[in-house]
């Protein structure tokens, strides 16, 4: 008797949980079918984000939601569905399939894998769904990847450093992580720039893993080894680590490119007057929001200029990628303004952020 | 013909069987008798191939049996019904009965229908009316034992071994089993019948082999051997054949009763009454598996039991061992490794845990003072050690046992219940432990000791209770002799309370 009673209780409570979950869902509504068949003015957009475990990605999703809100108010987007996979391909496939099955108009994907999602993406395209991979890229000729132009991003900083040094001096390259696609592209840009200046001598190239602590540790030993460092080229996430190493060595940091964190900006604003100069180009989490702008435009039937579509940086045989230039560059001249308007008072994990405005995005379309 | 030649089994330094030989003749029922620890079970397990002998040979029909291989034993026509059963609880009745000898059809698939048919045949033969697809684990004990016998029957063996097969059976089931066994004998099967019930042995067996301390004493034809002669063989020494004296306490002066149990009853106990006085050592003897362990566990609340219990300052049964400990009743298990010491912990921790365990769960376990007390106990008990903080598993068995005593003493108990306190302990430590037990009693603690070692009981106890089939059938006092205890244990079957067994055999 007891056995039966208990089992029933558990089964009932299980059902209750399901119903509760279902009930929670209804108010926000599933207007998917209506919007799909409608005038084409109100869209359901799914965002399949491959990973949510760091600040950058969290900020990226928040940006997407912020931009989506303005479109929701205008009635262009009826619903934005965000799904996060835990770097697990099968989970992301399942989420994409669920989006297909719930009849979204477009799926934006920050992909876990450049290749494994292809069948799922083809299914979506078969169902007439627009697929926009962003941030990372997917190797499929029929999608339109939206990603930051890593080459021009890295080139900007390197060029600035070379100019500031007037073409001669000893420099350190503090790069990210060997073997990662983005790193390969950036390294190419660095080499292309510095090889033009015979007077610039690269003392050493090290990998700081885009991590502050690693960068600090590596820099500390470099300071001890080379007394004559004139400049440092570094990428995002490591600038403050380098500064910390100099502070610990009781030295002033030389000319260096910086990073996008609040911590670095704070140091820069405080030491600008005492001769610290830097250059930051944002590699913004806002790429998601930018991709959303592109998605909406494409859903509305606009066509990209053929000049906007370039070779896929991972698989150059495919021409399917919009390389978005960084929307914001910070130098000594606009530092105070950027600091005051976007960075001041933000938590230390916040990254310098920006995304293309609708009119900037328009420029990519016919 | 099955011949056993010089079978020997050693477990480390312990010799379980020292060169046993016997012959099973087709068409006969052969009894195997022996007191506790005489090596019966070891012999049976060797026949079944579960235990590999250290030395010796088994010949089956003039061919050497591959030892240590149950499959080969089965192949040679030996089927064993084990005392502890060899069933898989989660599998169905039919699957269990034919486990290991499933009929297979074409392509190697198990022939489900023929399997069920053969199982049904056996169930019919045993008079069991149970659905063949119920999991065996859900069936009562007696039916499980019948199935264990069924498993042997279904193999149509030439040699069948029944190890205490009747112990868990009801009277009419025993009767049915005997008729089956007798008809098998008539068909020319040789049966080895291991039992402690003399009535049953005399009812069906032709010959009997007696084991003592792992050696064969002799094989006798039962038609011209009396029970007394068999008992003599089992005990070994020449003793008076008059019933054991039953004096009432002359050596021990009664003090206040500190543990009193009334009509304890559960699956293994059939109404046990018991009293232990302060300063008294009461022993529990009897053949193995007559409910001794169940009784100890019932007293400390480790199993469910009905009945009544009274101790100093507490009325009623204990809910669990912790409840018992909180009321000054401490238990020292015979299974040191699993239920006694914490092997990877220090001597110190092993000692103080006994006291700490009765504290409220969140109370801070203060170290102050404990250290001193533990050190004093270790000195007092002469535990051989190099540090109070060394791991207990590095100590000898005897020293581990002493650590358990120290733990018990540290908690200042009123009653201490012990199960086989000197199992696997060397002779000198054994004497030390016995002295310790006497000292403990001298301080007014009541002790209850179960032991399969009759010499031990005779040596330390004031009074010995003999258990048989879940009851206390005898009480021995006065000048205790090991042989008396052994004899009383064996005779348990024939004493007043064992009459049930007698009538059962007579009615066959």
């Amino acid at each position: 008797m007891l056995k039966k009673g208990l089992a029933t209780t558990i089964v009932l409570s299980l059902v209750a949980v399901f119903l509760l979950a279902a009930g929670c869902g209804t108010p926000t509504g599933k207007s998917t079918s209506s919007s799909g068949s409608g005038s084409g003015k109100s869209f359901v957009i799914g965002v399949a984000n491959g990973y949510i475990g760091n600040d950058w990605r969290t900020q990226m999703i928040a940006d997407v939601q912020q931009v989506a809100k303005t479109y929701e108010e205008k009635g262009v987007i009826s619903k934005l569905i965000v799904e996060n996979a835990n770097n697990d391909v099968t989970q992301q496939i399942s989420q994409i399939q669920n989006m297909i099955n719930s009849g979204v108009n477009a799926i934006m994907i920050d992909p876990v894998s450049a290749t494994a999602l292809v069948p799922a993406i083809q299914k979506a395209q078969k169902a007439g769904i627009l697929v926009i991979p962003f941030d990372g890229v997917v190797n499929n000729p029929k999608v339109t990847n939206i990603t930051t132009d890593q080459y021009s991003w890295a080139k900007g900083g390197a060029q600035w450093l070379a100019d500031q040094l007037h073409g001669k001096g000893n420099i350190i390259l503090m790069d990210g992580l060997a073997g990662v696609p983005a790193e390969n592209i950036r390294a190419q840009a660095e080499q292309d720039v510095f090889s033009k200046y015979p007077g610039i001598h690269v003392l050493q190239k090290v990998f700081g893993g885009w991590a502050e602590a690693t960068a600090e540790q590596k820099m500390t030993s470099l300071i001890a080894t080379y007394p004559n460092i004139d400049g440092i080229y570094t990428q995002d996430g490591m600038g403050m680590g380098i500064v910390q190493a100099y502070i610990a060595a009781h030295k002033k940091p030389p000319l260096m490119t910086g990073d996008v964190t609040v911590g670095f900006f704070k140091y820069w604003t405080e030491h600008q007057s005492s001769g610290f100069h830097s250059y930051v180009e944002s590699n913004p989490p806002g790429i998601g929001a930018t991709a959303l702008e592109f998605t909406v435009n494409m859903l509305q039937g606009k066509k990209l200029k053929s000049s906007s579509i370039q070779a896929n940086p991972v698989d150059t045989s495919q021409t399917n990628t919009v390389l978005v230039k960084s929307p914001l560059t910070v130098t000594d001249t606009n530092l105070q303004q950027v600091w005051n308007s976007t960075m001041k008072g933000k938590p230390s994990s916040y990254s310098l952020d920006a995304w293309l405005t609708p009119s900037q995005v328009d420029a990519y379309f016919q | 013909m099955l011949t056993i030649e010089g079978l020997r089994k050693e477990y480390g330094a312990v010799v379980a069987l020292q060169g046993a030989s016997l012959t099973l003749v087709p068409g006969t029922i052969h009894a195997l008798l022996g007191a506790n620890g005489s090596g019966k079970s070891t012999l049976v397990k060797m026949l079944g191939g579960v235990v590999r002998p250290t030395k010796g040979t088994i010949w089956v029909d003039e061919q050497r049996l591959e030892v240590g291989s149950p499959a080969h034993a089965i192949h040679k026509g030996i089927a064993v019904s084990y005392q502890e059963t060899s069933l898989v609880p989660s599998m169905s009745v039919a699957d269990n009965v034919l486990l290991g000898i499933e009929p297979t059809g074409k392509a190697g698939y198990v022939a489900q229908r023929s399997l069920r048919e053969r199982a049904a045949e056996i169930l019919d033969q045993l008079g069991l009316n149970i659905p063949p697809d119920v999991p065996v684990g859900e069936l009562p004990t007696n039916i499980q034992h019948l199935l264990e016998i069924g498993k042997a029957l279904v193999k149509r063996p030439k040699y069948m071994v029944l190890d205490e097969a009747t112990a868990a059976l009801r009277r009419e089931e025993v009767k049915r089993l005997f008729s089956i066994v007798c008809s098998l004998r008539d068909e020319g099967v040789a049966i080895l019948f291991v039992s402690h019930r003399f009535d049953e042995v005399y009812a069906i067996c032709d010959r009997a082999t007696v084991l003592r301390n792992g050696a064969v004493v002799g094989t006798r034809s039962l038609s011209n051997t009396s029970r007394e002669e068999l008992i003599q063989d089992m005990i070994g020494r020449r003793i008076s054949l008059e019933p054991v004296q039953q004096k009432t306490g002359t050596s021990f002066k009664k003090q206040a009763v500190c543990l009193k149990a009334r009509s304890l009853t559960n699956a293994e106990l059939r109404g046990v009454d018991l009293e232990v006085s302060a300063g008294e050592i009461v022993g529990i003897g009897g053949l193995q598996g007559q409910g001794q362990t169940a009784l100890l566990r019932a007293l400390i609340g480790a199993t469910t039991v009905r009945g009544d219990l009274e101790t100093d300052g507490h009325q009623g049964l204990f809910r669990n061992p912790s409840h018992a400990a909180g009321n000054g009743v401490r238990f020292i298990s015979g299974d040191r490794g699993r239920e006694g010491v914490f092997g990877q912990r220090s001597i110190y921790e092993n000692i103080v845990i006994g006291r700490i365990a009765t504290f409220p769960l969140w109370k801070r376990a203060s170290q102050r003072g404990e250290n001193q007390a533990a050190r004093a106990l270790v000195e007092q008990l002469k535990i051989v050690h190099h540090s109070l903080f060394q791991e207990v598993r590095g100590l000898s068995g005897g020293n581990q046992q002493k650590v358990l005593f120290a733990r018990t003493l540290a908690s200042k108990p009123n009653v201490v219940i012990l199960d086989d306190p000197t199992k696997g302990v060397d002779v000198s430590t054994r004497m030390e432990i016995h002295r310790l037990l006497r000292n403990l009693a001298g301080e007014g603690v009541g002790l209850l000791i179960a032991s399969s070692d009759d010499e031990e009981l005779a040596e330390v106890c004031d009074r010995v209770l003999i258990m048989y089939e879940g009851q206390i059938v005898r009480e021995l006092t006065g000048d205790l002799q090991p042989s008396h205890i052994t004899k009383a244990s064996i005779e348990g079957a024939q004493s007043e309370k064992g009459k049930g067994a007698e009538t059962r055999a007579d009615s066959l």
Partner: protein
Amino acid sequence: MRTPFNLNQRATRIFRSPAMIGWVLFLIGLVANAIVQPTLFKLSVINSNLGLAAPLIMVAIGQTAVVLAGGIDLSVGSIVTLTNVLVVSLYSFHHTGFWLAAIFGVAAGMAVGVVNGFIISVVRIPALLVTFAMMSIVNGVALAILPQPGGQIPADIYQIYGSTVGGLPFPFLLIVFGVLLWMIFRYRKIGRYLIAVGGADWSSRANGIPVTKVRFQSYILSATFASLAGLFLTSEVSSGDPLIGASYALNSLAAVVLGGTALAGGRGSVSGSAGGALFLILVQNIVYFANVPSYYQTLVSGLIVVIGLATTGVLYVRSGKLHLTNGR
């Protein structure tokens, strides 16, 4: 004479069979899913769900074999990965034919099972340690074979995987194939002996069952099913990824437990595990279509699975009141 036991008794038995738990959970999941997702029974939707379910069911079948025999196999996920990267890199970088690559991939997976089985049953090292270590080793090998996601299998392979054959979703046919493959073992002696060895190892020995051999084979079985799962998954994703199988070790164990198989061994069924695996797939749908905010999805799906596990646990304890007189 024995009376034939009545229907009611038989019904009780079926209800209390361990597999039932998995299927009841699956049905509840199905109903809940259908409520939040009205399109659930469209062929394309069924197809895509089964496409994800097929690999998990395969791994769960193999895991059940090991768990029934009283073991555990944590290396199944890495075997899935190994098969995936081997098939893809052999096909796309070494230009073997696809089917040759597939045979190699499955054979490599089975080889891992042979090593597992040997170390566990013959050398006698605990399964948890062996398969955990094996997981790291095999994952490392997979990373060495294919350090970055990439490669591609022939398009017709993954198109077949996503298609229907005779009106039935192709992955469904693969699941049927997996179950039939299992039945080949289940209804031979090995199928019974897995349960016997897991349920009572001494008794199995006493009955002449080759315990070591049975244990050994259970790991080969689980590796075989895991590498077939790797092949299915490769067809689903069309390319190689050195991290692709990571989630299968724990998910397969969850499926096995949800399906009413006792982790201690000796009791359970593959059909229950299949139900458990399908339930796990449905939970993902349910949290999606119930509009659970993405940040809470992991929490909610985790809770649902925990409730499912608790239900199984309680039902199991309640129904499986096994009492044998002599515990060993």
